């Protein structure tokens, strides 16, 4: 497999302010990525609404694939603290891919990053350790 499946990972806070958007491939361009992610947010909320009614709601919600275009698929995960993580995959990735462990580990990295006493959501970006963790996870996944 020449191309990595994961094209982009984005983390947004509960108010949909992006905390982290990292492209892992040169196409699509950054602007297109932002469009895809932004456009998916409504669908993420829709999916969250759907799951809210169900019995035994999971604290952390793996929302699965929320959006599909001709070239890309967007998977989402809503953490119980309100953050949302979106992963944009290429359409040629295997269709039965389960991103649940990926998202859970990413959430762990996020929690660790927020424990950094110097991290302040308003002023600073997520610390580099988070970026390293995500890159490592994507590497393990994308091939």
């Amino acid at each position, binding site marked *: 497999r020449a191309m990595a499946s994961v094209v982009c990972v984005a983390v947004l806070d509960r108010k949909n302010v992006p905390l982290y958007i990292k492209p892992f491939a040169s196409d699509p361009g950054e602007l297109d990525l932002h469009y895809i992610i932004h456009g998916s947010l409504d669908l993420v909320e829709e999916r969250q609404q759907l799951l809210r009614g169900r019995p035994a709601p999971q604290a952390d919600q793996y929302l699965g694939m929320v959006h599909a275009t001709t070239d890309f698929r967007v998977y989402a995960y809503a953490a119980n603290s309100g953050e949302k993580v979106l992963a944009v995959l290429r359409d040629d990735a295997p269709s039965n891919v389960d991103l649940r462990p990926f998202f859970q580990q990413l959430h762990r990295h996020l929690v*660790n*990053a927020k*424990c*950094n*006493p*110097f*991290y302040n959501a308003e002023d*600073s970006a997520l*610390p*580099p*350790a988070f970026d390293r963790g995500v890159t490592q996870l994507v590497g393990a996944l994308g091939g």
Partner: protein
Amino acid sequence: AAVATDARRSEGRARHEARAFGRANMPPPPYQRLGDIEFSKMDKVSSELFTLTYGAIVTQLVADLEDSGQVAAQLDKMGYGIGVRIVDEFLARANVRMCQNFEETGEVVAKVAFKMFLGVAVECRHTPPPQAAGADGTPAGESLGSFSIVLHDNPLTEFVEVPPEHEGLVYCSVLCGVLRGALEMVGMRVECSVVADQLKGDEATVISVVLKEIVAEQYHDDEA
């Protein structure tokens, strides 16, 4: 002559231990095992709470003082206050014999004290003492020594990343203060400094402890 004194000393040591441990001819306990035993007896607190508390202190100092050097000095002062009190707790709980030399002090600090209070196993690296007379008039042959405490795991710095604008900050300064305060209470004046820092990319955090002076106990006459 040197051999004879050693033999006398080790005899005295053995007798002391027999009294202390109630068994004859028992060798000195390995300090690591003693440290583990004492650690298991201590009440525990969440390590994350501890890490976050210390982080809050440091970030508040950084916000108040802005200068990394001043922050480190304050942390050291705080550590000193902790050290002078914690040494009594240490001596009360841990069943350690009097250290015969500074090298042993290093071992006890690393294997028993650090383990007891921070829950981590740390290494003690000894540096050979200087042979010549000290500059402050200590007689030649009475070696003032030094050792280094090497931490691979540090509960103070878990999840911490110092941002580039504060890159001069010595985050673990409090530990220097603790060591300085504690050792001063048992008659040793030392200088401590962080010589390697995991937060700056080094493999381990290393604190150098240099013995400057042994302070004899002073007895004050209470009567006027």
